[in-house]
């Protein structure tokens, strides 16, 4: 990268104008000035080019040179991604720390993937095999839980001329030569891919599998499908980041890509200290061994924030191409949209709503459409699920980012200020949220957990709706004037909210609930309602129902019964019928 392509004429924060004196491509990756600050060409006009620079431009003077690379902004994909924390343009932050103490100085270069580390490679093809794009030529066991499959890059196919024998290789070592007609291509353990271009797939498939997050309100009330798109909007302090963290920790995705986009530095530190200590319940390995982190904290350069989302999703697509199910956490997409707005403003573009550029919905759509359940080029199934947090100004969901996102996501988990104020976490509103995936995953739930799942779920939702209406009456006249049958609804809903919907992220047992535990808890609470309603009709009083051992057992079941003691839940169910039935006897 030494070809001078132009000279800087104007510096406006992260936006730099230059005059080109050589060929420049749109979205070309460039370096600016003596410190070689990295950037991307975002507009061409005659011989004028506009560059967005991913580093602080303090001290940059007009007249310095711009160096071209001839290729778009790309990421390196190969062994070494897992467990690494990158900045928005895939610079490894741990490596950067080694050369520049606690601060990120400008102009630091470090390769995204470790060039010296040796990986144990096992070939799966032999010379003479015809391979296509996306086909596996060998494997590298990257962590105990993740085996990287080394893929033929998209747009390359042909006959294998040579393939390296099993052994230890660095990522730049030549491991395979492919011949197609006259053209010979040498492959190594890693490949590059431009971040703004989706990696090719064979087919889009429809999805019927849920992604299990272990969070009851999500899995049971508003399930997420593998390959789905989810938005989590909420004002500050309503717990967006906590929900994202909980999904990143406990979801049954194979790989999690966590993008901290314009959020707090300490939150990334929290992930970095906590994840290596947490054990993935499915693999028994530290959670860090399936996680890739992208961090562009709020005080890091704004242009890199715009790029961080694309860096993250491209890495996710790479693992999807290996046949993995990947979950992408983007916290927060509002900061990304604001980065777009800032850059757009500095380029003096005409603004649309609230200063956001007119292409905001297009960009959002492009991003969310990179999610889905796919047949990969290698004819395997893989998926990318996107969970995007939104930080609406003033907690007002009518603002442009929330409104446009709503058009492109099918699962909407609205966080509620009043719930958060009462420290009801996760503060997901059961009245404003929705999931379009319920029907798709019903069969799965009924097979794995409870044959009546859909019915029980619907009954509970109906009760919550009724309760919301009753609460309006209660606000006017108090609960005491309601008949016992309606007060029972209030009691059951309170119970459901406290026991089922509210879930403590800090409690050892409660932080994660298996599908079986969730389904059983749902059945217990709905059964409690049905039986209580019945005994109330036969002379029992609500006061007595609330004094039962069953009522107390239900209240404590989430903390006291762990995921592998499902039989204790069955016990509650069995005792309930007996104890409640005794209340309706007229002899007391």
């Amino acid at each position, binding site marked *: 990268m030494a070809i001078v392509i132009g000279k800087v004429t104007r510096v406006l924060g992260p936006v730099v104008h230059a005059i080109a004196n050589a060929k420049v491509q749109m979205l070309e990756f460039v370096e600016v000035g003596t410190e070689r600050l990295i950037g991307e060409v975002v507009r061409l006009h005659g011989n004028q080019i506009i560059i967005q620079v991913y580093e602080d*431009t303090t001290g940059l*003077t007009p007249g310095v040179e711009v160096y071209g690379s001839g290729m778009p902004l790309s990421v390196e994909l190969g062994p070494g991604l897992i467990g690494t924390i990158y900045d928005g343009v895939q610079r490894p932050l741990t490596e950067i720390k080694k050369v520049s103490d606690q*601060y990120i100085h400008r102009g630091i270069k470090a390769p995204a993937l470790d060039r010296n580390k040796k990986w144990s490679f096992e070939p799966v093809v032999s010379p003479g095999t015809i391979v296509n794009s996306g086909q596996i030529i060998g494997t590298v066991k990257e962590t105990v839980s993740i085996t990287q499959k080394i893929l033929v890059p998209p747009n390359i196919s042909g006959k294998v001329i040579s393939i390296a024998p099993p052994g230890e290789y660095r990522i730049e070592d030549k491991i395979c030569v492919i011949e197609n007609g006259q053209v010979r291509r040498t492959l190594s353990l890693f490949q590059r891919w431009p971040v703004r271009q989706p990696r090719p797939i064979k087919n889009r498939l429809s999805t019927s599998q849920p992604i299990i997050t272990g969070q009851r309100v999500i899995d049971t009330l508003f399930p997420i499908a593998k390959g789905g798109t989810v938005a989590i909007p909420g004002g500050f302090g309503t717990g967006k980041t906590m929900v994202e963290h909980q999904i990143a920790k406990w979801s049954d995705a194979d790989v999690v890509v966590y993008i901290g986009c*314009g959020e707090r530095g300490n939150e990334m530190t929290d992930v970095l200290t906590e994840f290596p200590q947490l054990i993935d319940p499915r693999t028994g390995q530290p959670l860090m061994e399936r996680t890739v982190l992208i961090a562009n904290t709020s*005080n890091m350069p704004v242009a890199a924030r715009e790029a961080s989302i694309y860096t993250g999703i491209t890495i996710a697509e790479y693992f999807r191409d290996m046949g993995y199910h990947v979950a992408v956490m983007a916290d927060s997409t509002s900061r990304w949209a604001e980065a777009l*707005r*800032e850059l757009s403003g500095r380029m003096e573009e005409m603004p649309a709503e609230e200063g956001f550029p007119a292409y905001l919905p297009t960009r959002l759509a492009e991003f969310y459409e990179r999610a889905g359940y796919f047949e990969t080029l290698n004819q395997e199934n893989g998926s990318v699920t996107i969970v995007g947090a939104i930080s609406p100004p003033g907690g007002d969901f009518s603002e442009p980012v929330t409104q446009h996102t709503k058009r492109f996501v099918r699962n909407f988990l609205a966080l509620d200020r009043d719930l958060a104020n*009462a420290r009801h976490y996760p503060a997901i509103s059961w009245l404003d949220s929705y999931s379009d995936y319920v029907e798709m995953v019903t069969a799965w739930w009924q097979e794995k957990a409870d044959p009546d799942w859909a019915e029980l779920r619907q009954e509970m939702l109906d009760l919550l709706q009724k309760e919301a209406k009753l609460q309006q009456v*209660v606000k006017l*006249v108090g609960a005491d004037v309601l008949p016992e049958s309606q007060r029972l609804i209030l009691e059951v809903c309170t119970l459901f909210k406290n026991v089922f919907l509210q879930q403590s992220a800090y409690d050892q047992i409660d932080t994660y609930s298996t599908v079986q535990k969730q389904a059983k808890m749902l059945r217990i609470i709905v059964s409690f309602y049905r039986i209580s309603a019945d005994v109330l009709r036969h002379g029992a009083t609500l006061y007595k129902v609330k004094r039962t051992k069953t009522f107390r057992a239900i209240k404590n079941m989430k903390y006291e019964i762990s995921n592998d003691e499902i039989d204790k839940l069955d016990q509650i169910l069995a005792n309930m019928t007996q104890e409640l039935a005794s209340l309706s006897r007229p002899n007391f």
Partner: protein
Amino acid sequence: MSQIKKINEMNKYDQAELLKYREYIGIQEVAGPLICIENIHNVGYNELVEIRDERGEPRIGQVLEANQSAAVIQVFEGTTGLSLTGTAVRFHGAPLRIPVTQEMLGRIFDGLGRPIDGGPEPLTNEFWDANGESINPTARTYPTTFIQTGISAIDGMNTLVNGQKLPLFSGPGLSHDRLTAQIVRQAKIVGREVSFAIVFAAMGIKHDIAQYFIDNFRDAGVLENVVMFLSLADAPSVERLITPRSALTMAEYLAFHENMQVLVVMTDMTNYCEALREISIARGEIPSRKSYPGYLYSDLASLYERAGMVDNSTGSITQVPILSMPNDDISHPIPDLTGYITEGQIVLDRELFQQGIYPPIALLPSLSRLMKDGIGEGLTRADHAHLASQLFAAYARVKEVRALASVIGEEELSAVDHSYLKFGLAMENKFIAQKETDDRSIYETLDLGWKMLSLLPREELQRITEEEAQQYHHYQNENE
């Protein structure tokens, strides 16, 4: 004009020397706090600029936009008295740096780090870039050390942690200054003999408020541990933009270079944001919500994110910024964006204030995000988390009961609802309210919290465990 000056200088100095002291006479435009200068060379973005008016009085500015032969400069001391032909502009070739040394403790400086207490310039070789750099998230240490402020509503419910950024959201006339002064006086790390160094940044506040803080620090005997950066209400508004940066640079030096525990108080952030808006509009930028610039979030983050701890130092920066919510509106862009960046907020409430309750801390909208990792066994006490959660839930219920009582009358309420009313009053008058001299230990605060819960029957408490209930909860009901 500027060309002639340059040629004259060429004769005196060699080329390199000339580049070092590029000085031009004559500017092309003055617009509010901005000046525009043309026919210049080699000017860097964000570079420090020295401007002298016709009488030779120096002012300091910063390059906002660097073009090939022109630059836009913001002048921190304002542009009053500058003329187009008589103004001399000298470029320093480096961003603004302020002197930092431990000897600055006990001194008072203006927003740009120049002494205004009559004392001499601080003697040091350390000059640090006021804009700071972003901390690598992998170099941060996650804050978990509890700071005891002696204030129940904070310690018990919204615990402050060493290295946290926890702003006070206040309104005009509320007692935020008294509360801040009390926090500064009482803050301590239990079990460690640590005294906090205090960095105080004042942006656009009145002289008497600054004096109030100075007197307070003196009375508490901590004045020797305080560095003050004052840009008061009568100082040019642009100076407010650099004041918190100077203060935070000082704080970083003390914390990460001298390994001290630093408490940064910045007041009033609203004035800072107003100054930012003023500059943005003067530059003709596309405005965002309420005409604040679209980069208000990033700009505030570049201040607030300078709190925390790093792994190669034992020091820490804890920030307590104060902002007054315009019209008491928490959804106004300034508190809103602040809340998105800081690790929680302490919200002051006008209703409590008018009832004479000090400190008027509104429990429900207040939040400390780092509380979860700073409390519990070994840090405060094992029951702290459940107790706080239960107090929040119960107090949220009080609000509902009060709303109901205002419709149907108190007499019509059920017995349980009555106990909630009693609990609510006790919370406000005994738990939240305390004297300015009242320095409660964390154990006193927690025991007081349990005393409050004892006004409610056990069945109402769903967030505490059976053992905790047995140990601490003693239901008092005169009816039984």
